[in-house]
Structure formats: C-alpha cells, structure tokens
C-alpha cells in the first residue's frame, strides 16, 4: 500500500485550480490560433484576435481568463493500492477547490437552486465541487479537472433516441442542439458527445469527452471518422465566433461511445466554450 497524505491532495488541487483559471491550456490555444488563421469573416476574426490577446493578458498578468470561473468538475482515478491518510478524498478535493478559488480571486458561483442564494458561507466558497471517482489499478491518484462555465452548460442536452434512428439520428440531434444554441455558449466551442450506456452514462461520457486534449481523435477509427464528419457538418452552420457569423464555429468534436440496452439509444451533448480550462495532476 502506498500512502498519500490528505494535505498533499489539498495542495495539488489548489494549485491546479489557480493555474487553470489563468492559463489557457496549449491544446485550446492551438485550436484558437488555427481558427483565427482559417476564419473568413472579418468580424469573427476580430473576435478570435481578442480571445488570443485575452489569453496572453490572463497568462502574463495572472488574471482569470473569464469572470465565469465555473463550477469545479473532477474525474479522479484512484489506484487500488493507494491509502489516503488524514482524511477523506472528497473532503481534500473540496478543501483544495475552496482554497484555490479564494486565493486566486475567482468567483464563487454555487447557489441554492430555487432561492438562488450564494452558498459560499453555508457550504463553502464555490463548493461543492462535482467529483467523479473511479477505482483503477496501480498506486497513484490521477486528478483531472475542468472549470465549467454556465453559459455552455445551459445549452447542453440529452435525449434517448429510438434504436432505428441510428447514427443519422445522433447526427441530427447534435446538429439541432448546436444550431439552437447559436451565440449563447460562447463559440467557437468544443462539443462532447456521449452515445450509449444508460441515460446518466451518456451524460457523464459527454462530460468526460470534453476532458480530452482538444482535437485528439477517439482511438477507434470508426468513431474518429464520425467525429470528423460531425465537425464538418457543424461548421456549415455559419454561427462563427460569438455567433456573429463565420466559418469557425466548432474547434473539435469528441465522441465517447458505450454499449447500450437493446431498447434504447441514449445521446448526450455537452458543450464547452472556447475558454476550455482543464488540467491534470498525478500524485
């Protein structure tokens, strides 16, 4: 058994949260630069220019890339030969999240659903984090993190299709979601698609798809081809950066596919804005 201390997890999470808020990761930056080169609309090109400038200011002056510093979402893989000492894993992740959001001058955005009361006093600063935990082989803990903004989450959708609708039905649904979203999720966007599994498996898969390095194809060549096809279809919509019209609406499409029940075909579309703030740390 390898021991990992609670305090080390808190510290690692705090650093991850603070760094991610101000440093747009290389994959997202590269995709934005490519979009800026390819864009045909002068208005959209100007927006992309602002986004690149924004990333530079955020990095060099350590200012949050966006005022919506998101809800903190984690996918954590815990090796089964690890023993955590001094406290619970979830508590450590929440504590690191709170410290990072406070010390980084990030926004506390969690609230009670109906009264809309901010929960920073009674639950914690931007708490609770959304934490997905998986037990895997090995003696390490791998923490993958994303700061997920509200605007792009608001346009995300899930639907259970009839099996007969097949791949064409999935394509039509994804197109419908992105077309309807238009300017609202801050395009150019990354589109995570979870296909199959059960209702919640599809949704979680679509979220996890967004944690992949932008533009890295699915290892299954058939799914990779499907991703490429969707990308081309979606860029025909003409939405463009910030919805002002243009050729570069979607930076990448990531699809995760799972076996499903003989009676159903669940699909979930989770949208990520251009400020794709994600990162990971291994302990």
């Amino acid at each position, binding site marked *: 058994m390898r021991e990992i201390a609670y305090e080390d997890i808190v510290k690692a999470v705090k650093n991850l949260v603070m760094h991610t808020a101000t440093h747009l990761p290389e994959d997202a930056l590269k995709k934005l630069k490519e979009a800026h080169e390819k864009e045909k609309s002068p208005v959209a090109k*100007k927006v992309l220019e602002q986004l690149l400038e*924004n990333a530079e200011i955020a990095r060099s002056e350590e*200012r949050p890339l966006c*005022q919506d510093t998101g809800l903190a979402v984690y996918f954590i893989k815990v090796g089964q030969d690890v023993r955590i000492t001094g406290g619970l894993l979830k508590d450590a992740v929440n504590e690191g999240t709170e410290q990072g959001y406070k010390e980084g001058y990030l*926004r506390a955005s969690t609230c009670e659903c109906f009264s809309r009361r901010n929960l920073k006093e009674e639950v914690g600063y931007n708490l609770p984090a959304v934490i997905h935990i998986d037990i895997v082989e090995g003696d390490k803990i791998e923490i993958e993190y994303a700061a997920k903004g509200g605007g792009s989450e608001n346009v995300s959708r899930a639907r259970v299709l009839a099996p007969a609708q097949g791949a064409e039905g999935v394509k039509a649904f994804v197109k419908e979601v992105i077309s309807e979203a238009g300017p*609202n999720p801050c395009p150019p966007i990354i589109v995570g698609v979870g296909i199959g599994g059960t209702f919640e498996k599809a949704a979680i898969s679509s979220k996890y798809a967004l944690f992949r390095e932008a533009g890295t194809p699915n290892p299954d060549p058939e799914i990779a081809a499907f991703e490429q096809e969707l990308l081309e279809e979606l860029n025909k*919509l*003409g939405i*463009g950066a910030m919805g002002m*019209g243009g050729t570069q609406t979607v930076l990448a499409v990531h699809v995760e596919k799972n076996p499903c029940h003989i009676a159903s075909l669940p699909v979930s579309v989770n949208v990520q804005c251009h400020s794709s703030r994600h990162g990971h740390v291994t302990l």
Partner: protein
Amino acid sequence: MSEVYHLTTPLSDEDIEKLKAGDIVYLSGTIYTARDAAHKRLVDLIAKGEPLPFELKGAVIYFVGPTPPKPGEPIGSAGPTTSYRMDSYSPTLIEHGLKGMIGKGKRNQAVKDACQKHKAVYFGATGGAGALLGKLIKEAKVIAYEELGPEAVRELKVEEFPVTVINDAYGNDLYEEGRKQYEVKD
C-alpha cells in the same frame, strides 16, 4: 460594411440612430452593471414609482458578474454574461430611457421590438475575454444591492470599451444576418 464609432455615455437618440447591426463601437464614460436579481429590483422600483439607484435616461447597462478584484485593482475579470435571462425585464427599462445593453447571446422579440420602438441598441461584447475587458474598466464602485455580491449594481468608468451592435433600432439582428452569410446549405 460595418462602421466604427467612438461614443461617450449617456447615449442620445442621435447616437442610437446612426448605429447599425455589425457596427463596432468603442464606448467611454459611465456604464452600470446589473444581472437578473438586480434587474428584478429595478423593475419593481419602476412599478412602485420609486427612484432608481442611477439615472436611466441615456444609460448603458452591462450584464456582468465580475470576479473579485485583486488588492489595489478596481475590478477583476469582467466579460459579458448571457443576456436572455434579462429579457423579461429589459423592455420596461428601455421604455423608461435605457439606451444600451451590453451582453452576449440572443434576445427575444420583445426586447428587439422595444429597441425599435424606443430607440435603443443591444451590444455584444466578447464572451470569455474577461481579462482583456476587465482591464478597460478604470473605476468601479457598488452603488446598490451590495448583498447580491457579484450581482450588485456597480457604476463603472470605461475607456474605449469594444462592443459590436447586435440589435439596432431598425429591427436588424447581427446573429441572424451574420449566420445567414456564412451558412453552407447542402
């Protein structure tokens, strides 16, 4: 072809009349922040015939919930939030003199109609450019509803704040027109 304007608040009917969807405007002067919760309170005050915390005639409201300022700075990152959440309140404010709104994302028909009827415009700022836009805000002070935290009403002094006209006073919509221009039909 889109024009570029440099305007100072408060905005007049003449300012609004020259603006067309797609034009780029650099705004300077005083603007006010408000999100859903503050909008509800402003509209309630109007219904009761009570005075508002700021002069609405010619005003520009920025839909934003900034990050907390670092020590010594007026404001943190401050890009636009999604505007549709203000759709049910904006027409009343426009009717009472509001001339400009800054946000991101689609507005409903009632807002577009109010812009046309009472001469007002909806500007889009670049969502996710919070670090860049926050730097163009030179002063910020909370003037109402401090208990709302990021959603409090703030008076901001801005210099050359870049926005694009999305909905003008003539019924044009850049989101619809821009998209039509680049849409590829099979």
